[in-house]
């Protein structure tokens, strides 16, 4: 919870920085600050406590995910340095930084909430700042469109969330998730229909936030329209935050009521996996491709949600980490290539293997990791989630997931093939130092996790 406060302060500092015009040093300071916060966050490991009389709780769950979130934001900030280079961006750099950090605040709340209010606030903080960031390229219609679509649908969905919260409050008379949990345990056998409806409405809202089919429509458009960096943020931090919150919500409040939502979750999971993979097959725009692949990943993560009776949080965490590092590496490379070639379509990668082997190798590894091929982290994430699902008897879902991950391999390979066997285009691709750093760190992490996945499986 200190983490949260410090992060908020850091955000405020970002705003003030404009006044003391520290623009030049802003990013380094921010990065440094986040690094410090990251280490502080580790302090709370194995020190579960509750703050603001039951509004927030620190638990290993929240600590772990907070750590991950902070790490992602750290990477994003590092990337931001060389991403916001145009004069217009220069002007607003401090705002951007601040808003990004506030996004992190929202995420942190979503990890450590103990009360529906905090969940709501967290989600909104996260979303609102993202609406802004998604639309931050004011003069690009695409960006506007992305921001506005996201905004409209996001607020629409949060209305459902609120209605659900209200109904549950009406039945249980409390907003504290533990209180709700108690009620749910007590009345597990005959639950008030209002409670169930409330639960289902909340589940719908959360499914929207994690961009699971059939609530996934916003994702591709927003991902494509938003500035690439923000897309990276959305496809990693936001997704992970939403899943963590979703997981916590269901595992604490609704475990025994889930039988009433089984079909919805199962159908949604299957649909998400299939739609994500199938549509990604036909994409030419790299960001859109990653958007759809992100949808399919959401499907795999839903497997963990579905089978959470078996406490699959560590599997979920491992998957999130693997997914995050891989996508960050992919985006870091993609952004470089976009900058160089000026196109966001896969053809931009043609012949990268000749022009810049290291970059191509990095992207290949990222892609293989996303495709879930050993020895990269992505594979282990998949493996553990599948294994958990299998243990909880969802063989058919697992089978479906495995089959469709073959489809997944196909479109990830499309990029690799483009890099290695297509005719090279003339643009010179040269990543800046910070990008090289990020790429190397992420790839190394991805392999490291691949070699020692054991560190994560017992973590939570």
């Amino acid at each position: 919870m200190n983490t949260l406060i410090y992060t908020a302060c850091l955000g405020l500092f970002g705003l003030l920085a404009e006044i003391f015009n520290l623009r030049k040093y802003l990013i380094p300071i921010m990065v440094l600050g986040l690094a410090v916060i990251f280490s502080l966050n580790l302090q709370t490991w194995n020190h579960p406590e509750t703050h603001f009389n039951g509004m927030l709780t620190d638990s290993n769950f929240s600590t772990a995910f907070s750590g991950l979130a902070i790490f992602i934001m750290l990477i994003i900030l590092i990337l931001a340095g060389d991403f916001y280079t145009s004069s217009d961006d220069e002007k607003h750099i401090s705002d951007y930084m601040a808003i990004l950090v506030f996004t992190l605040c929202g995420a942190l709340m979503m990890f450590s909430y103990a009360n529906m209010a905090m969940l709501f606030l967290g989600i909104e903080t996260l979303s609102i700042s993202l609406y802004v960031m998604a639309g931050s390229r004011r003069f690009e219609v695409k960006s506007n469109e992305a921001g506005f679509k996201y905004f409209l649908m996001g607020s629409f969905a949060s209305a459902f969330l609120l209605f659900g919260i209200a109904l549950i409050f009406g039945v249980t008379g409390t907003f504290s998730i533990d209180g709700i949990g108690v009620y749910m345990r007590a009345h597990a056998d005959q639950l008030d229909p209002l409670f169930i409806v409330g639960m289902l409405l909340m589940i719908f809202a959360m499914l929207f936030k994690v961009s699971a089919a059939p609530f996934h429509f916003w994702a591709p458009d927003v991902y494509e329209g938003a500035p690439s960096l923000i897309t990276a943020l959305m496809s990693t931090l936001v997704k992970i935050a939403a899943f963590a919150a979703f997981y916590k919500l269901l595992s604490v409040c609704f475990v025994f009521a889930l039988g009433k939502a089984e079909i919805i979750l199962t159908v949604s999971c299957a649909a998400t996996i299939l739609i994500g993979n199938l549509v990604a097959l036909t994409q030419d725009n790299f960001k859109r491709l990653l958007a759809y692949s992100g949808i399919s990943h959401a499907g795999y993560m839903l497997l963990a949600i579905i089978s959470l009776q078996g406490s699959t949080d560590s599997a979920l965490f491992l998957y999130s980490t693997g997914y995050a590092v891989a996508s960050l590496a992919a985006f870091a490379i993609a952004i470089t290539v976009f900058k160089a070639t000026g196109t966001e379509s896969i053809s931009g990668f043609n012949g990268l293997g000749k022009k810049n082997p290291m970059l191509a190798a990095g992207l290949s590894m990222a892609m293989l990791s996303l495709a879930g091929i050993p020895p990269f982290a992505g594979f282990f994430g998949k493996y553990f989630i599948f294994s958990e699902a299998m243990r909880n008897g969802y063989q058919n879902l697992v089978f479906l997931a495995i089959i469709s991950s073959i489809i997944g391999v196909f479109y990830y390979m499309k990029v690799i093939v483009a890099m290695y066997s297509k005719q090279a285009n003339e643009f010179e691709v040269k990543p800046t130092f910070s990008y090289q750093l990020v790429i190397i760190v992420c790839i190394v992490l991805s392999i490291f996790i691949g070699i020692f996945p054991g560190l994560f499986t017992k973590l939570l």
Partner: protein
Amino acid sequence: MENTMQAVPQNWYLLLSTFMFCIGVMGVLLRRNAIIILMCIELMLNAVNLLLVSFSSYAGNAEGQVFVFFIMVVAAAEVAVGLALLVSIYRNIASTDIDILSKMKW
């Protein structure tokens, strides 16, 4: 205060707010003007507020009403952001019809 609230059976509140909520949803789905859609969303939120207030007064604890304040604040923020976005859009395409916003598809 209490009794005036409780003069009406709780279910009525429930029905009313559900009704309002549905109106909001319908508005969102049927209207094409961004501003009106924004207002419909506000309507949905207010339906929730009403529900919360009634519940909290029946349950006799203030939590619900506190929550309403949260919602109001957030809603305000949301609208602010939304309108800002709308303005920039209007600058670019000189319209508030959401159907024009379909550059990105498939």
